């Protein structure tokens, strides 16, 4: 009712004001529409987002954005959003992590953006990384297909981070920034980088994501219909076994089944010369005392494409938003070139637009990593993680728990994956049936 009154007041006052010729006094504060934006992130991101919102409000004087940053990523954030949705206080615009997109969109809580995007003068879906955009599609029963229900705020591809200082001291030349090492080459390099110093074991590599090995080997985790888990195929099992052998056979990696082996910490402590992780680690690693760079993730054989998982956060509009047009304006701004240029400043993300990523906005010359373009090639071939395949991903938890048998060396990958297949497939289907 207040907005109605304000609108009427504006209609009455407007001609009078223009009649007086003092346009700048046309108090926009009273006709402003307030939309809410809820997200999470580091403190420095908060500052940058505030800046971006201020500029957005300058360009759209009729819209006011009420921004809430929820501390804590993942579970805490999602719970806060769930609570607001259930209490019918859903934010107009909110961050939708790709892993939670399925759960949220399945319940009809997000606005179908297809027509808005099609008529937008700013957003060009063709300019965006396809794998970043497509993970926010939904056709009513399958993810990654159909209409767009969110726009990517970013894409977070993975790369092989390496400690330049350690490589230099062990006399290992830095890996090529454009051609990925083959698995055999990589193991030879990691062997040179694995050594013992008193009680301290140094590793060549820490944290090899199994998806990167499986996909680069040409195998898959779930089938195209996303109804069957196919990691028990011989090719996939061989790739998983290769990951396990890094610790078991070659001794170049810490065993992921042991609770104390946090791969990221080992890299930061200088105890792992190489480490595979996402782009989002860059702001943190820029503060490290040693020199580092990035290279492509290794491939089974020369000439094969290096494929790994990428992370992403979407910007979604609540289906119950009273101001969908204004909400979309904000999404358009943040997901558009201008907003993206600002959000990229933290170093945290790769912009969702390819052409913008190829500029200094992202490459940030003079700052680590030197070969930032590695992330762009990774984004090109990257896929959404397996945890985005279905709305309910309990099956992935089941897999992550049972795979320890393979990491420990109790069973071969072939045997263990075959044995867990019926259970994982049942869990996958049971929890994702219509």
């Amino acid at each position: 009712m207040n907005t109605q009154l304000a609108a009427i007041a504006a209609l009455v006052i407007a001609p009078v004001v223009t009649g007086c010729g003092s346009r700048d006094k046309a108090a926009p504060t009273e006709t402003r529409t307030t939309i809410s934006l809820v997200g999470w992130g580091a403190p420095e991101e908060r500052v940058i987002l505030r800046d971006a919102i201020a500029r957005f409000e300058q360009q759209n004087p009729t819209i006011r954005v009420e921004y809430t940053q929820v501390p804590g990523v993942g579970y805490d954030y999602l719970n806060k959003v769930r609570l607001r949705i259930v209490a019918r206080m859903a934010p107009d615009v909110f961050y939708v992590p790709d892993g939670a997109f399925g759960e949220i969109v399945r319940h009809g809580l997000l606005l179908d953006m297809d027509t808005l995007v099609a008529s937008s003068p700013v957003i060009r879906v063709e300019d965006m990384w396809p794998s970043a955009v497509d993970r926010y599609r939904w056709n009513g029963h399958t993810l990654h297909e159909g209409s767009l229900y969110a726009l990517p705020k970013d894409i977070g591809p993975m790369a092989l981070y390496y400690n330049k200082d350690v490589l230099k001291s062990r006399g290992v030349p830095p890996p090529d920034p454009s051609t990925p090492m083959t698995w055999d080459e990589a193991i030879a390099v990691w062997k040179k980088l694995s050594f013992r110093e008193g009680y301290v074991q140094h590793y060549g590599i820490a944290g090899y994501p199994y998806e990167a090995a499986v996909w680069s080997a040409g195998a898959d985790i779930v089938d195209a219909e996303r109804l069957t888990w196919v990691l028990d195929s011989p090719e996939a099992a061989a790739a998983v076994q290769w990951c396990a052998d890094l610790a078991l056979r070659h001794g170049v990696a810490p065993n992921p089944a042991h609770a104390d082996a946090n791969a990221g910490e080992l890299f930061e402590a200088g105890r792992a010369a190489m480490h595979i992780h996402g782009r989002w680690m860059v702001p943190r690693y820029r503060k490290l005392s040693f020199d580092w760079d990035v290279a492509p993730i290794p491939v089974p054989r020369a000439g094969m494409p290096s494929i790994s998982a990428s992370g992403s956060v979407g910007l979604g509009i609540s289906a119950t938003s009273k101001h969908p047009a204004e909400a979309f304006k904000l999404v358009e701004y943040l997901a558009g070139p201008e907003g993206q240029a600002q959000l990229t400043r933290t170093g945290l993300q790769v912009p969702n637009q390819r052409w913008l990523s190829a500029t200094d906005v992202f490459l940030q010359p003079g700052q680590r990593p030197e070969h930032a373009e590695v992330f762009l090639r990774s984004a090109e071939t990257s896929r959404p993680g397996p945890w985005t395949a279905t709305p309910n991903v309990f099956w992935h938890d089941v897999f992550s728990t049972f795979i320890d048998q393979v990491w420990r060396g109790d069973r071969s990958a072939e045997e263990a994956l075959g044995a867990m297949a019926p259970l994982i497939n049942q869990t996958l289907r049971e929890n994702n049936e219509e």
Partner: protein
Amino acid sequence: MGRSQALWGYAFVAIPVLGFLVFALGPMIASLYLSFTDYQVLAPPEWVGLENYTRLFTRDFFIGRTLANTVFYLIGIPIGMAISLLLAMALNQKLRFQSLFRTVFFVPAVCSIVAAALLWKWIYNPDYGLIGTYLRMLGVEEPPAWLSNPRLVKPSLVLMGIWGGLGYNMILFLAALQGVPRHLLEAASLDGASAWQRFWHVTLPAISPTTFFVAVTGVIGGLQNFDQVYVMTRGGPEYGSATFMLYLYVTGFQYFEMGYASAMAWLLAALVMLVTFLQFRLARRWVSYA
């Protein structure tokens, strides 16, 4: 006189009864309803009839696995009861530093279970933990990873559970022991009964109501075992330590399958009621309220 006193009586009783009606009975009925629906919190519940229950009984691997784990943990209850009774008998003697010992053994009962679980997580840590360090000093090259070995994790958690329950049960037994009639014990020893015979034929029957209470509350608590496992292992490795309650929590509060989780809650409630009923039936044979 009677009337106003009775009114006061009702007034006092009304407070917990109201609390039960508002905060327990309402949600209980709601969860019974939800157990027949597909309810994922973000959208209104949808009636699915017995679907959740058929899935529970026929198609869910984790129900069997977690129920078996839960039952395994119950092993700790008789062991814990025996040890706390022994402690109570020792501390019932005239000892030096009696109250110091009583305090020491009661501390775990006062301690938050989360703090205690974190403490034990460190004790069990294979690299820096207390047990691992001692084993290394004794020459064991690689002490076992207590909590990440699927075979060791349950016994390790049982051990911690026994430690956690000792103090509380010990206090109950201590109180019961002090209520054992002296004259009966004296009469028994005059008749030439040995210490063991006095214990078996006098003390044990005299404290049987307490033993029964400890057993019943222990089993009910044991079937709902959650916090310790949640803090220490999150159910791992390979769901080898996951209790039924933990699986219920994960289903309901991590994956928001609230309808299904409600069905699980009712299965557990039925189980608790059945076991408690059986215990009461069996109690007729061995509990004496003389």
